[in-house]
């Protein structure tokens, strides 16, 4: 009987992904970079629980020959996994890890990482190192069309996973550190034609261009190199923007430097900005605000609110009203924070004088690598806690005068080194979503920087990983480690979960592999 049931599941048809499947994904699938439009990275699957997670064992490993440090998030649709490496897409049988097809872009500009694909209809979409948006046939990997997003020769590239909304593909751009101005684009999902572009740096005559001294707006930065979130009811896209350039030398770009280091809300149909909130005005520490914004509907101070929460690279946890952009709360989620003494009632940081890069070097906490970074956070609607990967550590930040040179040269105005006084240390932390109060923390001993992102499941688990290669399952309520597996290579990607053939899997990229786990039978 069991075999027959499996056979039925096994013979599952590859269905087209309709907009409804993107709006309300089936729990067995993982159709967005962050799981769903609200980016909570919480799965309804509950086969794997706190009581049986000890039985989690690897089911298959897929090795990507050309990969070194994968940061891609797999997409899973009805038993097919789509997985990327720069210039490459792999379609795998999600139960067995066997390859169905692969796409390799030629000629291929080498630049990494790639963070993943998006799916819609019978198509798979990716961004490329030469700043193109590429559409493939999801069934055999045939190239359907490609659209140039920006000039690769200027230094632009497209590492972010696209997001599909209705018939549009939303696509960000990198980098900020080369003095290239960022934007967010929407493309026709059928033809690849560009429908709108929102410019992250206002041009002369546009509001807030005066937040840039002189002509500094021309090389302002503000990349959009991670994937944002979407509220279908409000029809608003929420995206974080990157740092201003040159990163560490703020003297040449006095002003708030809008809309760098912002969370922006854009009308999904037109790309028009509805509101923005700047986390770090006049940033001089390269604290991109691109971290995944999580959308949560929950009572806040007695009133039901549509919230947007973000753990920012600058060390603060922010709670905003996502209808209006109103700042509700901001509180540090790290202990080592020396650049601001707090936030004003409007959420603007109260700067500590002197904590800016200098010729000799200035101790700055958090470090430029950030209190957190591209590692995705998660939200569990059962605990109502926000889970974040946090780094405690400080840098010595220096500055010098840099010259903008077009063609993809870095325009940083110097950088940072690790402070010798405090060793860097990674944590997974649980915060109350409305107060930001620490509920528990899990210290990733001997892990110093970056890590895996987080996954929350209805089985009461938080999955995380570290740069030493361990994938770990924590109890979502206590933070106690219940299971751990040494995958053998550094983990820099985000875990996902899906179900195929009646079995729940947890999968993550580690180093040059992708590994899928399920309960031992």
């Amino acid at each position, binding site marked *: 009987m069991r*075999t*027959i049931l*499996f*056979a*039925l599941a*096994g*013979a*599952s*048809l*590859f269905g087209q992904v309709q907009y409804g499947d993107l709006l309300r994904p089936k729990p067995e699938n993982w159709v967005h970079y962050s799981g769903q439009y609200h980016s909570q990275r919480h799965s309804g699957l509950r086969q794997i629980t706190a009581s049986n997670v000890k039985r989690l064992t690897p089911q298959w490993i897929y090795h990507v020959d050309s990969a070194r440090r994968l940061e891609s998030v797999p997409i899973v649709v009805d*038993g*097919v996994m789509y997985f990327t490496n720069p210039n490459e897409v792999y379609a795998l*049988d*999600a*139960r*067995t890890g*066997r*390859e*169905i*097809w692969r796409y390799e872009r030629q*000629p291929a500009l080498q630049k990494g990482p790639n963070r993943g694909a998006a799916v819609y209809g019978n198509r798979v979409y990716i961004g490329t190192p*030469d700043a*193109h948006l590429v*559409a493939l*046939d999801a*069934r*055999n990997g*045939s*190239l*359907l*069309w*490609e659209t*140039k997003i920006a000039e690769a020769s200027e230094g632009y590239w497209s590492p972010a996973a696209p997001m599909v909304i209705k018939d549009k593909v939303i696509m960000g751009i990198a980098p900020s550190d080369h003095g290239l101005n960022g934007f967010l684009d929407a493309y026709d999902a059928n033809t690849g034609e560009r429908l709108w572009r929102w410019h992250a740096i206002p041009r002369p005559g546009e509001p807030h261009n005066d937040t840039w001294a002189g002509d500094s707006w021309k090389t302002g930065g503000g990349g959009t190199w991670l994937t944002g979130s979407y509220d279908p009811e409000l029809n608003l896209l929420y995206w974080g923007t990157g740092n201003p350039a040159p990163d560490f030398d703020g003297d040449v770009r006095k002003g708030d430097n809008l809309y760098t280091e912002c969370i922006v809300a854009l009308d999904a149909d037109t790309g028009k900005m509805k509101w923005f909130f700047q986390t770090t005005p006049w940033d001089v520490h390269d604290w991109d605000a691109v971290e995944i914004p999580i959308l949560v509907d929950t009572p806040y101070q007695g009133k039901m609110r549509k919230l947007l929460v973000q753990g920012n690279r600058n060390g603060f946890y922010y709670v905003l009203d996502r209808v209006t952009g109103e700042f509700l709360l901001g509180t540090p989620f790290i202990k080592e924070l020396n650049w601001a003494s707090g936030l004003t009632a409007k959420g603007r940081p109260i700067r500590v004088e002197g904590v800016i890069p200098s010729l000799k070097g200035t101790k700055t906490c958090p470090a430029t690598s950030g209190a957190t970074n591209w590692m995705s956070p998660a939200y569990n609607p059962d605990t109502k806690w926000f889970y974040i990967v946090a780094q405690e550590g400080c840098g010595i930040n220096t500055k010098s005068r840099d010259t903008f040179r077009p063609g993809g040269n870095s325009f940083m105005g110097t950088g940072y080194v690790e402070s010798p006084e405090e060793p860097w240390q990674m944590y997974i932390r649980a915060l109350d979503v409305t107060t930001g109060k620490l509920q528990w923390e899990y210290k990733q001993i001997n892990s110093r920087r970056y890590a895996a992102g987080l996954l929350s499941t209805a089985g009461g688990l938080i999955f995380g990983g570290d740069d030493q290669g361990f994938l770990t399952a924590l109890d979502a309520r206590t933070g106690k480690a219940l299971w751990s597996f040494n995958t053998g290579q550094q983990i820099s990607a985000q875990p996902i979960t899906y179900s195929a*053939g009646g079995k729940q899997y947890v999968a993550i990229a580690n180093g040059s592999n992708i590994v899928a786990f399920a309960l031992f039978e």
Partner: protein
Amino acid sequence: MADVFYLAMRFQWIVLACVLSLACLAQQRGRGGRRVRFDAAEAREGRDIYNRSCTMCHGLDGAAGDRAPALGAQRRYLRATTEELLDAIKNGIKGTNMPASPAMAEGDIRKVTAFIHSLRATAVDLDVPGDAAAGQALFQGKAGCAKCHMVNGQGGILGPDLSNLGAERSLAAIRESLTIAKPTPPRGFQPVTVTTVAGKRIEGLMKNQHNTSFQILGLDEKLYLLTAGEVREMSYGKTSLMPTGVEKRMNEAEFQNLLAYLSRLARSRR
């Protein structure tokens, strides 16, 4: 242990051979990796000169002869560049039967060289005669090619995507694939019929397989992913779904138009 080592060595050579033949298929390149340019009109003249002058040893139209090798076979050439070929024809190849041709006119040597390049070139370089637009209409229409083959995002998905065919294959290889049946279906395109344990019948192409699982693209253009335990019965088709004798199902001019269209399929450079 020795057997394992032997197999590993053998496998290495197979991989190397595949890589080399793929490289030859992809583009005719000289030593420096640059694409070899030649004049198509000169190559046509060169063919006549070659057939007059070189077929004492080499075969007709560059095929293998009784005393000398084929010039257009898909292998790694010791002499690939124009300069190397000119030198071989003019001065011969020492230590072989290839004689010098001191009496041959410089212009004729150049034309023979162009002809040899054309044998080794991919189809897009050849300026194949015929009405490519009419060939495209045929491809998309009554010849039925587009039911299985995609070109620039249009067409079926069962057969290989042909968008870059002319830049990857020689004219001879394209002609062959239309006219001569392959001894076995290419990997990834073997027809298969499966009956599952649940009683479902699936007809399709085996994209990938192992003792433990099968990844099939159904003729209905859907993916079927099965583990071995879910399969009751499976039988493989011996011949590819690609029809052969295409030239017999249309007139000569139509076939030439189809070749003209297919040979021009090359993705525009980014």
